[in-house]
């Protein structure tokens, strides 16, 4: 179900397939839809970030997102990834589903101490799990902090490709596409193409690579 939804998002980002509607690929009546939206996070709304979208966002989409936010809030002891992905979905709702009634809740606080303190392999793994937040204009503060560790994220990309962890590599490649100064010798454009060729059968890999291309013009 998540894979199908990710495929739908990736297709929309590539400008293929039918016009995207979240409630079209994840139906409101489906009991598992809130869980799937929560897992996809901000990426559930990524196609709405594409300019000049053809179809207006409907009320059904709003309802689907509200369900997800209500059903799976991060707990008091939530991990940074859980807190940040939730925040990402709230931010995306604000950005791409404006004018909701009642208004969307304010984005909850999420910690960034790990960006400073994680050793680079751990940092890279965590950042890749938050790749949906690389969607502009979300999480500008997090992006700025991660920019301070651009080289470490690039090292994570290298490590991930070498150990054939395509999902992690794609997520990191997407962040590096958003950050201003990915190292030139990394070969980010060819790297994203390589990851798509090698691991693109995983819809989430395809989604990240498509997002890097659509929003940042990176990757062949």
């Amino acid at each position, binding site marked *: *179900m*998540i894979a199908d939804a990710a495929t739908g998002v990736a297709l929309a980002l590539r400008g293929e397939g039918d016009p995207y509607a979240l409630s079209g690929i994840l139906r409101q009546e*489906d*009991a*598992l839809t809130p*869980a*799937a939206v*929560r*897992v996809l*996070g901000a990426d559930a709304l990524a196609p709405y970030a594409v300019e000049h979208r053809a179809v207006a966002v409907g009320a059904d989409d709003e309802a689907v997102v509200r369900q997800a936010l209500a*059903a*799976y809030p991060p707990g008091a002891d939530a*991990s940074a*990834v*859980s807190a940040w*992905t939730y925040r990402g979905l709230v931010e995306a709702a604000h950005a791409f589903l404006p004018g909701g009634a009642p208004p969307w809740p304010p984005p909850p606080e999420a910690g960034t101490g790990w960006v400073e303190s994680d050793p680079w392999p751990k940092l890279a*793994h965590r950042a890749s*799990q938050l790749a949906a937040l690389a969607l502009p204009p979300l999480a500008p503060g997090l992006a700025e902090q991660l920019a301070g560790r651009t080289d470490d994220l690039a090292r994570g990309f290298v490590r991930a490709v*070498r*150990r*054939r*962890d395509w999902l*992690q590599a794609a997520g990191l490649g997407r962040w590096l596409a958003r950050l201003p100064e990915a190292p030139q010798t990394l070969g980010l454009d060819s790297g994203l193409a390589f990851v798509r060729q090698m691991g693109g059968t995983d819809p989430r890999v395809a989604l990240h690579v498509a997002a890097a291309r659509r929003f940042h013009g990176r990757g062949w």
Partner: protein
Amino acid sequence: MVTDRTAPVETATLAAEVEGLLEPAEADGVFRDTRECGGALLLAALLLISPPTPRPKTDVR
């Protein structure tokens, strides 16, 4: 996996599953190396201070 749409939704179980999907453990690395094919194997050149012939990781000595 969150794929079975007919099962009754156990909220607590599902919440744990969602957390797991958000933050999966890192997969084991897959290391597969380039194989040599062709003449190089036949030459058996002396490689001064060069790597030993690569062996698969499972090699038992």
